């Protein structure tokens, strides 16, 4: 018996065909992976499987029974719980209420609700207070709250659309522990991720979509990584993330941080030379994000200075940072990365608009971004709100690089980006470094850190360790978790 079975599903957005006669079936008790490149249609399928969108064609059955009507939201919610790729938390409400949204019972008993929320948060190791406003949480905390909510509904089928893209290692591990426990209790999962090692770690079956079509469904066990990637990309050959070992770097310092202190970090000094890529690692509370944002001027430093090419950059002033030649991929694309209603072209060139904007030039820049960063889109005039998550992220990267900056500050640059595109994006970082730029990569993903010449580890706002190129996964993780 299948927990869910969808057949012949087709979804169109105007002329874009997001899903073309695809199928999927998740067996009861199975943990089923769904993979594919950015824009392959995964999230669209999720919206169909959770009743958020009626497909143009096709049908969905849960345990052999036809799915409820689109209007009957409560019935859908009984069948399936989901963590969507795009946040579905209500920012103005408390964490407690978000956890039990629409299942507070007919009469809300606040004290009991808060207690249940605290228990749940404890279980998932989410360090937030039940009364905190969700709007005040970090992306990561919010994601954990949404995961806890989905896993706690008691649904027999749970869909997770890139739950790990914003999480650090320990949080991912806790999530997997919970998933295994629930699977033991007979819960089925549909799991979407661009981290293929996660697929191998928790999933039993995998389905691959490519260009809106179903390509493959197979047990994970018998499937080599290269085969999986080939199914996704349609091209033979494995992938290699550039590690830049052969990169030469000059001794000339480009970016210098001197005794920099700010929100959540203290007294960080760092010099990045031309052609050098420096990684910043650390847990969510390590202050690495705040440090990166301070360098770019999104936050004001409380002490110390940032200079580029020997010239001091005014703190807390993004235009000054831009003028000094710093480019940045901010942490949360929805919050700081994109103006959703504007086109790809407009977003990608927002940092470099000349005072007179030629429409043709703008569109050409958009087309170039689409080609360079392998963005799946209908054209440069498409609003970014219509793009899939990973493609949106690529637009953010395009925006950061548009000004051809001397210093790149990249925060989780590959969040939600598919393997193939990740390779290309990291390739861009490598190429930029080879062209004499300096780069700082802030990431929780080891793959991202592999392009780095050295990796600094922050713990509670201070640099506690530094690794050169020869780090091994284990020692880096130990340092990140403060166990070095």
């Amino acid at each position, binding site marked *: 018996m299948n927990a869910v079975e969808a057949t012949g599903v087709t979804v169109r957005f105007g002329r874009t065909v997001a899903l073309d006669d695809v199928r999927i079936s998740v067996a009861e008790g199975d943990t089923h992976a769904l993979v594919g490149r950015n824009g392959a249609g995964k999230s669209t399928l999720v919206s169909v499987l959770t009743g958020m969108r009626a497909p143009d064609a096709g049908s969905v059955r849960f345990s052999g029974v036809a799915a409820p009507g689109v209007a009957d939201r409560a019935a859908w919610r009984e069948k399936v719980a989901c963590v969507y790729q795009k946040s579905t938390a*209500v920012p*103005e409400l408390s964490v407690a209420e978000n956890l039990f949204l629409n299942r507070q019972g007919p009469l809300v008993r606040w004290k009991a609700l808060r207690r249940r929320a605290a228990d749940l948060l404890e279980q998932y190791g989410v360090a937030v207070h039940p*009364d905190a406003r969700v709007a005040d949480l970090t992306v990561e905390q919010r994601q954990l709250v949404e995961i806890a909510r989905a896993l706690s509904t008691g649904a027999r089928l749970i869909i997770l659309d890139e739950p790990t893209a914003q999480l650090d*290692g320990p949080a991912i*591990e806790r999530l997997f522990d919970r998933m295994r426990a629930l699977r033991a209790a007979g819960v089925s999962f549909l799991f979407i991720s661009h981290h293929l090692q996660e697929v191998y770690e928790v999933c039993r079956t995998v389905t691959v979509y490519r260009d809106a079509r179903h390509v493959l469904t197979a047990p994970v066990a018998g499937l080599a990584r290269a085969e999986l990637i080939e199914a996704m990309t349609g091209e033979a050959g494995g992938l290699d993330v550039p590690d830049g070992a052969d990169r030469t770097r000059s001794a000339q310092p480009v970016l210098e941080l001197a005794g920099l202190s700010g929100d959540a970090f203290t007294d960080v000094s760092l010099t990045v030379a031309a052609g050098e890529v420096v990684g910043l690692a650390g847990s969510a509370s390590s202050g690495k994000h705040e440090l990166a944002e301070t360098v770019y001027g999104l936050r004001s430093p409380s002490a110390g200075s940032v200079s580029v090419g020997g010239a001091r950059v005014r703190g807390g002033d993004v235009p000054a940072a831009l003028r000094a030649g710093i480019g940045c991929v901010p942490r949360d694309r929805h919050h700081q990365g994109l103006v959703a209603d504007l086109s790809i072209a407009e977003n990608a060139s927002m940092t470099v608009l000349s005072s007179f904007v030629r429409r043709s030039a703008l569109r050409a820049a958009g087309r170039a971004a689409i080609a360079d960063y392998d963005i799946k889109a209908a054209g440069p005039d498409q609003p970014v709100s219509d793009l899939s998550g990973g493609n949106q992220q690529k637009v953010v990267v395009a925006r950061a690089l548009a000004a051809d900056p001397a210093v790149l500050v990249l925060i989780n640059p590959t969040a939600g980006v598919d393997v193939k595109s990740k390779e290309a994006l990291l390739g861009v970082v490598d190429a930029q470094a080879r062209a004499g730029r300096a780069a700082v990569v802030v990431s929780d993903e080891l793959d991202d850190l592999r392009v780095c010449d050295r990796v600094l580890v922050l713990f509670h706002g201070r640099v506690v360790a530094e690794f050169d190129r020869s780090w091994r996964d284990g020692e880096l993780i130990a340092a990140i978790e*403060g*166990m070095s």
Partner: protein
Amino acid sequence: MTGTPTRPPSAAADPPKFRLGRYQDLALVPAIVVLLVVGALVSPVFPTTGNLVAVLQQQSELSLLVLGQALILIAGKMDLSLESTIGIAPALAIALVIPAASNGLGVELPAWTAIPVCLLVGAAIGGLNGFLVLKLGLSGFMVTLGMLTMLRGLQEALTKGQTLFDVPESFLYLGATTWLGLPAAVWVCVLLFAAGVFALTYLRQGRSLYAVGGNKEAARAAGIRVDRVVWAVLVIGGLLAAVAGILMTGRLGTVAVTQGSGMIFKVFAAAVIGGISLQGGRGTLFGALSGVLMLGLVENILRLLSVSGFYINASYGAVIILALVVTRFATGKVQE
């Protein structure tokens, strides 16, 4: 990803310094206290029961419109037509009851139907707004703006610009009686506000307004029937405007063609001063009520001061801005 999970740093788990909901509720209290003190200093009449009760009664109709609008705003919509509903709902109900000789429509329904018909008209207007917005997919702001004009026009057409006099006893009773020393109108408001506060605090349906107004997709994903909630809230808004219309008609003893006209600005002012967000999903009814009280006190004090007609608008505007400044610095919160 190996290694034992470290305990997350404890700092993040500290309780937030205050509970936002409660705190915002009280944001206007300092401003109201200041006004009460100023009022008492300005005029010996101000602190008398008679005067304060009069303030409450004068604000009762506004407060019901604000209650309705607050619910609608929290759910992420707005309804400008409330200010016409407060006129046309009683006007239509009365025109159906009174004889053609008194400017009625000549239908002469029995007198007891007046109040139910009035409520029905209010609910129907809310329902119609809901239909246009939800089923036809029209812009809510524009639809209700169009309605505002159209309903006022219908009232003019209906009554040929005449004021309706033969107001049924039931209306007059509600407008003039006092229960336990307070005007019936005040009791009605208190009860409806209490019901509203209860629903928004303790009922799942009430809480769902915040979810719908705060993030529609999230609400939908959580199994809330967003359209139904919005529709319900628009109908309730219309109903409350009709109740306000009954009270106003009872208080004034007639329905003028202009009844309620120009009120919508005050409704928004009270709601927004009281902390209801125009973006939806934020604010409490207690806050909205204190917004109404504040405006009422300001008007009363200006009136007792006998500010010259030439300066009354200027003073009123200045006091509103001042109140914003006081609230801003009392709460330390940047307003949106």
